[in-house]
């Protein structure tokens, strides 16, 4: 029975089987033991027509009751931003999304140039010298940064601020669990940032890297310069993760502040939350470490006629050449998502990106003001924040959030499950998508 995805007609099958001297398709599988084949039946329903399938998916979607973006105050690693129409237009171009990794540059200049531009844009945002072509996400980026530090510094210890997003720390732990690296967590203070006294104490000559996140999981901005100086003094690298790259539009870049690696999730740069992905992890470092970079790199070159062109380069770092000696096992990365990020930055541009960051900051500051002054709630942390912050509520957070949900607001993330000592705390994120009226409703609801 013919299917729209399968072009083989009965007549085609006859002709092809004759050409391969087989009586039927089963004959092609003779290398497979009989009993394996006998048991291989798929107990799955029959295929669906396009119309029925669309209806089924729409049914599933109607069992997802996510509120309008204006009532969304969840952050904590995934942010509620506007996606310009241009971004989806770009990643919907067939030639971008139906192509493979650009191993054949003569028919892949589109992807290659776009990724070369992406690398440049990430360097501009982070103030670093080189960026790779993307990693899976910020969390595995943190793991790769620690592995890089381990290779570069040949020291086993990794100091991780506890104010780093718990998923980042969890993934780093998983990635390093097979190795001899040792992860030590450094507590945070009442400011909501890394405890520098504790850091000072933990810093010894066994430390390869100090990793912090800024803004961190509480939305607080870390003093990267001071932390970097401490790390460097001890001969360790400063790894500067970032929850929210829009903050680069208003916060000094990690490169200037002394970071050796800057990384994070690129979701805010034009990608929908999509219940967790796909997004992309950006990863940038100093020129000195370029041969230690994990993942792909696009470089400039020229063709036989002297025309400029782009190619994948420095592949001797990678698994398909170096195998077990590679800097990372990554192969497929997040190319299309990185392209979306580049298109987002190109569309917003210098002015738009600055404006966006500024409005996020202003909205969050306004929210803090009304929550404090009008709802009368307190903030457990004192450090400055970008577009999210922690607020302490007076009732069980789940109850508070449940009430807000009934009003069409997703009011924040309860921090108790991640930080038992913060059982009354809610992480609230405010972006350009939240109008003043929704912020005011949120404040009222948090109080109640």
């Amino acid at each position, binding site marked *: 029975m013919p299917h729209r995805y*399968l072009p083989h007609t009965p007549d085609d099958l006859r002709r092809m089987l004759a050409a391969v001297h087989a009586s039927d398709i089963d004959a092609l599988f003779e290398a497979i033991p009989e009993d394996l084949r006998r048991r291989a039946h798929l107990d799955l329903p029959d295929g669906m027509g396009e119309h029925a399938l669309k209806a089924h998916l729409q049914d599933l979607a109607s069992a997802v009751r996510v509120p309008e973006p204006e009532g969304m105050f969840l952050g904590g690693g995934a942010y509620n931003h506007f996606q310009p129409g241009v971004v989806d237009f770009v990643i919907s171009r067939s030639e*971008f*999304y139906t192509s493979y990794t650009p191993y054949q540059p003569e028919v892949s200049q589109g992807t290659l140039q776009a990724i070369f531009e992406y690398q440049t844009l990430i360097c501009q945002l982070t103030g670093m010298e080189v960026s790779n072509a993307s990693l899976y996400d910020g969390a595995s980026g943190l793991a790769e940064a620690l592995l890089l530090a381990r290779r570069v510094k040949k020291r086993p210890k990794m100091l991780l601020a506890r104010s780093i997003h718990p998923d980042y720390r969890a993934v780093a732990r998983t990635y390093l669990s097979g190795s001899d690296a040792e992860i030590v967590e450094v507590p945070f203070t009442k400011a909501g940032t890394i405890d520098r006294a504790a850091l000072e104490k933990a810093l010894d000559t066994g430390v390869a890297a100090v990793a912090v996140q800024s803004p961190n999981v509480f939305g607080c901005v870390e003093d990267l310069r001071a932390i970097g100086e401490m790390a460097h003094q001890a001969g360790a690298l400063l790894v500067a993760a970032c929850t929210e790259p829009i903050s680069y539009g208003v916060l000094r870049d990690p490169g200037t502040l002394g970071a050796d690696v800057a990384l994070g999730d690129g979701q805010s740069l034009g990608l929908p939350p999509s219940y967790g992905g796909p997004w992309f992890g950006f990863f940038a470092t100093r020129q000195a470490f370029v041969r230690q970079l994990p993942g792909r790199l696009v470089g400039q070159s020229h063709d036989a006629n002297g025309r400029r062109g782009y190619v994948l*380069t420095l592949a001797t770092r990678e698994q398909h050449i170096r195998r077990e000696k590679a800097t990372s*096992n990554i192969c497929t990365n997040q190319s299309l998502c990185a392209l979306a990020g580049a298109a987002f930055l*190109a569309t917003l541009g210098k002015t738009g990106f600055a404006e966006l960051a500024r409005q996020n900051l*202003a909205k969050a500051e306004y929210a803090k003001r009304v929550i404090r002054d009008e709802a009368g709630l307190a903030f457990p942390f004192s450090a400055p924040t970008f577009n999210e912050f922690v607020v302490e509520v007076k009732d069980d957070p789940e109850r508070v959030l449940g009430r807000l*949900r009934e009003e069409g607001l997703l009011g924040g993330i309860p921090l108790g499950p991640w930080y038992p000592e913060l059982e009354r705390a809610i992480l609230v994120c405010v972006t350009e998508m939240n109008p003043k009226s929704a912020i005011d409703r949120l404040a009222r609801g948090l109080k109640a």
Partner: protein
Amino acid sequence: MNVKPGATQPLEPLLFEKGSPGRVGWSLPPADVPDVDPDAIFGKGAARGPVEGLPELSEVDVVRHYTRLSRLNYGVDVGMYPLGSCTMKYNPKLNEWAARIPAFARSHPLQPPEISQGLLALMHALERILCEVSGMARVTLQPAAGAQGELAGMLIVRAHHKAHGNPRHKVLVPDTAHGTNPASCALCDYEVVTIKSGPTGLLEPAAVAAHMDEDVAALMLTNPNTCGLFETHIREIADIVHAKGGLVYYDGANLNALMGVAKPGHMGVDVMHFNLHKTFSTPHGGGGPGSGPVGVVEPLARYLPTPIVNLRDGQYVLDDVPESIGKMKSFHGHVGMHIRAYAYALALGGKGLAQSSRYAVLNANYVLERLRGAYHVPYAGRVMHECIVTDKRQNDHGVKTLDIAKRLMDYGYHPPTVYFPLVVPGALMIEPTESESLETLDAFVDAMLAIAREAEEDPELVTGAPHTTPVARLDEVEAARKPILRWTPA
């Protein structure tokens, strides 16, 4: 530059070479809250003005830039893309729509499960489909791609052995393996022991037995292997590995040959990964995103990455996995890809998936059969979903695999995978996939045959190829010698 203007269509300048100060492609409405002073909030020196160097373009500039770039690319929608080991099948348009359904796309990964039932149901159903196809007991959807799946899988292997007192130190990997296999082992601090495959391209039980001991944590193999051959001895080999307490890891990159034909779960496989971006039609996106779910047999399920979707009392819930290896990714993995893969599986259904594999194998055999006369074929007999030929005969005329690959571009095709697997010198690894019709296969083979003739009659036509692409052959050596990895102002 040796090319005169107007002699070829112009290339596209970089984003940074376009635009003008003050030009905008986007703007926000004025804020409805008071403006703030970043210097005052963060302290001078911690705040920052506009990011230097960001492009300044109007909307049409951006649209044109990327439209033009896209036209320099080849994709599955442009034509046959017989890239071996990559399964470049058709990426259905419906799937792109599905992943963009607003309720899916707008869902925050930390929103409560009560309001996310549709998504959790989908993920749960996809897990069941993957279990049915593979014969595994449970599957995690978390890994981002094949390589991350391998890492997760090998960490599960490690967790298993650790729980039995000793993580062990070695992993056996055939010489035909993809580079990610040894690289993933290394990440888990396993020493890679390379096993030579036999003259027929298959892994031989004796070779495995010779290396198998109680310090070997696992054998990691791909089946069909990267020569496109089914590892006929797989169960015997699995028995050898199991006998010494080892586990069998199965790289599912080539699963497109086997849906409804044979299940890894029946072959003695303990852990495996899927590449949804191969077998389940999610688009490759110029190099990602992928999705690399990992399946395990029942006793290993306790080590899966956390959390996992379960159905309890009619509600889908996200359960922690207490003995888990931990998290592989933030949140729940590439849900956008799960949606696409699910839509694909439902579109085909059980029968359609089985047909897909059967036609994929038929296509590869057909191509091989037609190429036999003109190209050297390294392994005798039938193949599974892909086939390998080499440049051995063309070498006599100074024509190499790379030249044949580039010349194919002039005929309108993407080249096959070249020089892989490493064990076959000058390999051209051709995976047509089931999406290609007989006519397309014939046209592709005709081009290959024409090139074989050209190699004899006019070898420079082939070694000078491509002639009709937007750029000519690129200098990759120069690029690596003095890497230019970003644009910098002149």
